[in-house]
């Protein structure tokens, strides 16, 4: 494969598309698919064929505003239709060349205008099962160019220059990590993609893997070239069957095109990727636990150092990055590090994808430049909380993050600002809560999650989260005392400072942040046995909550 051959493929795709007067793209991402977008696509195909018009009906990945799904976009007019049922397909095809169907049109200009799409630049525009569609949008250009023209050191320099930080949540500088792996001694090295998106309430990585799988593969190949690896693993959750099948297909296509395998582009560089399935363990998002899981063992973390960059998979230097981090690599290589670092804030460069969910009008996937005000995401892009309710808090970072109260909406979204506010960037889940959510119950929900997901290796996390859960349950059922509260605060510090891995070290964050900003709610539960949001059942001796499954009882015992 050479640059010229890539151009030829791109040209043939463009020529083929030019045969059509209209392109009708149907979002087939999980959210739209769960509302029957597959039937809609079939109906559109039938109507298009019957109409005699030259219409290309295309399946695409996530277009973004899932709450308006199933979504259909008509090009070249760029008309976006929402809530399209299969019965509406005929109407849409009939309208081509005339006036758009007014009642189906989505007026989401504000929603899209504040966004900046780098990772999601192709999602919603390409058919994820066609490698040529990706190539037509400059796909694999970065890889081929690098193999022909750049040294591994040059690639690492460009990534360092871009200021990209790990998108899995920790925010470790990517260039620095790559440099460490590249410098590590040894012939055999591995590149691992962390697609174990265990954070409940987040689905960015799923959408990227499903909507634009080749971008992840290209990013991994570039990383492998830079650090000197010849084997890669993508670790995906088994709960994402579509992502697994899309990636499998994409790997096959890439091999067929000679973009993976032995002597890629007739250079000495050989690289191939294998998919490994997760099996529903949140802790496997932690890098050492993930390595153990790839090795076929229980996913328990081990102390660091040595870091995986020095001794990782099978004791070899291993580079582990998140899906979104890899997805950022091809555009950085194509456009240069300076282009990337021109976006974003002082110490957080580029863009970040967020899964905007909860009590908000426009739920879905958004990509914004770093440093954007939280208020803008919630009120402009998200369209605010539904009428009749008021915003109470925004939760970021999942079970490792915290709740940011409504008064603090003017902070900029960056690694440091969120950390200062007692939360973390996390992988990108952003859950909006209104006055119907009880913050004590939310804290209890997260601790219950961490308790059941704790691998049990270290005591502070295993026993600490269980004790915190018991104490929070007492408060939520009206049996809590001020002593319990003091004990919780004490435990938070112990668990945070003495746990082995990130899961335990961050588990107290939701409790700490709600205690910091919503202490009055805790006090109301304890002193007046009243839940201000009316969520908690306060009668003494209340039966166990449904969110406390049988397993938790065993853990407590």
């Amino acid at each position, binding site marked *: 494969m050479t640059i010229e051959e890539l151009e030829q493929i791109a040209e043939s795709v463009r020529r083929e598309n030019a045969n059509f007067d209209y392109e009708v793209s149907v979002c087939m991402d999980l959210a739209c698919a769960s509302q029957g977008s597959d039937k809609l696509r079939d109906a559109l195909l039938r109507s298009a064929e019957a109409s005699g018009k030259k219409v290309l009906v295309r399946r695409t990945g996530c277009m973004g505003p899932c709450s308006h799904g199933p979504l259909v976009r008509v090009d070249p007019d760029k008309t976006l239709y929402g809530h399209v049922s299969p019965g509406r397909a005929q109407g849409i095809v009939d309208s081509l060349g005339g006036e758009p169907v007014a009642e189906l049109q989505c007026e989401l200009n504000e929603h899209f205008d504040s966004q900046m799409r780098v990772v999601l630049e192709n999602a919603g525009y390409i058919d994820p099962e066609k490698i040529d569609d990706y190539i037509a949008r400059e796909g694999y250009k970065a890889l081929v160019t690098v193999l022909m023209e750049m040294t591994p050191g040059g690639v690492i320099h460009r990534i360092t220059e871009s200021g990209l930080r790990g998108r899995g949540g920790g925010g470790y500088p990517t260039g620095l990590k790559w440099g460490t792996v590249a410098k590590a001694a040894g012939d055999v090295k591995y590149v691992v993609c962390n697609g174990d998106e265990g954070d409940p309430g987040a689905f960015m990585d799923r959408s990227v893997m499903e909507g634009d799988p080749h971008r992840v593969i290209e990013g991994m190949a570039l990383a492998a070239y830079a650090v000197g690896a010849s084997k890669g693993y993508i670790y995906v959750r088994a709960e994402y069957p579509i992502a697994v099948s899309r990636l499998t297909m994409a790997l096959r296509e890439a091999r067929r095109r000679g973009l993976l395998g032995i002597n890629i582009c007739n250079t000495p560089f050989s690289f191939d990727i294998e998919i490994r399935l997760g*099996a529903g363990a949140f802790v496997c998002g932690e890098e050492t636990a993930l390595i153990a899981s790839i090795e076929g063992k229980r996913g328990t973390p081990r102390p660091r150092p040595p870091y995986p960059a020095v001794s990782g998979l099978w004791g070899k230097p291993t580079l582990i990055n998140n899906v979104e981090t890899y997805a950022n690599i091809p555009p950085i290589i194509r456009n240069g590090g300076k282009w990337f670092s021109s976006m974003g804030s002082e110490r957080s460069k580029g863009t970040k994808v967020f899964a905007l*969910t909860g009590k908000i009008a426009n739920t879905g996937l958004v990509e914004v430049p770093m440093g954007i005000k939280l208020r803008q995401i919630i009120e402009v892009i998200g369209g605010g909380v539904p009428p009749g309710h008021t915003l109470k808090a925004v939760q970021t970072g999942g079970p490792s993050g915290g709740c940011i109260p409504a008064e603090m909406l003017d902070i900029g979204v960056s690694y440091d600002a969120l950390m200062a506010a007692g939360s973390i960037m996390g992988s990108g889940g952003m859950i909006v809560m209104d006055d119907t959510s009880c913050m004590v119950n939310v804290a209890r929900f997260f601790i219950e999650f961490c308790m059941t997901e704790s691998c049990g290796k270290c005591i502070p996390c295993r026993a600490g989260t269980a004790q915190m859960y018991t104490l929070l349950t007492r408060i939520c059922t009206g049996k809590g005392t001020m002593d319990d509260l003091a004990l919780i605060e004490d435990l938070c510090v112990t668990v945070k400072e003495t746990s082995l891995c990130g899961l335990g070290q961050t588990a107290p964050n939701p409790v700490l942040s709600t205690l910091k900003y919503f202490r009055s709610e805790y006090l109301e539960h304890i002193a007046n046995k009243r839940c201000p949001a009316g969520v908690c059942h306060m009668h003494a001796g209340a039966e166990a909550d449904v969110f406390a499954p049988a397993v938790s009882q065993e853990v407590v015992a």
Partner: protein
Amino acid sequence: MARVTGVTVAAIARTLRLESQLELALWSHSGRVPFQIWEGIVSAFIPPPLPSDDKRWKIVNGAMRKNGFARHALIETLHAVQSSFGYLDDNAIRFVALSLRVPLSQAYGVATFYHYFSLKPPGKHTLTVCAGTACYIKGADKLIAAAEERLGIVPGHTTADGQVSLMTARCVGACSRAPVMLADGEVTGERTSEQLIEQLERWAVE
């Protein structure tokens, strides 16, 4: 063609001063191991016979063969068992452990560590309610309570007649359509307790 028999892969890896079998695999892949030796390595290990004539065991065996019966393929193999049989029973775990030369304790440890693996047979139908954060905020607890009341079981169990299993999931990634429910794996969003009961009733009259 020279065949090395009675030698384990690990022993050959040791002789070649390689730390792991995977390294050996990579090594041979790189063309540095003569094909004959590699052929010998593959033929040296004879996996145990399949537990029965059930065709599903062939799928499981195929998954192991694809990975060269390597120990690190344990999780992959258990996935193959679960997708073929619906759950992991003792026989299956024992067969996989013997085939991959993994201690029984490790195989059982892995099977019980990961939530995705089930050691109990599922019911005819499975209703899964997502209990991720977005679904929790949007009232998944009400859905679970409705299902519990209707079926008389708590999540993780199957009704006595074996018809319906009630499960909770840790986020299926359809958070923008919360609360989410899966009826036999099919994802539907923005569910209400009434819709959940309707689904259960549809199954009941089948």
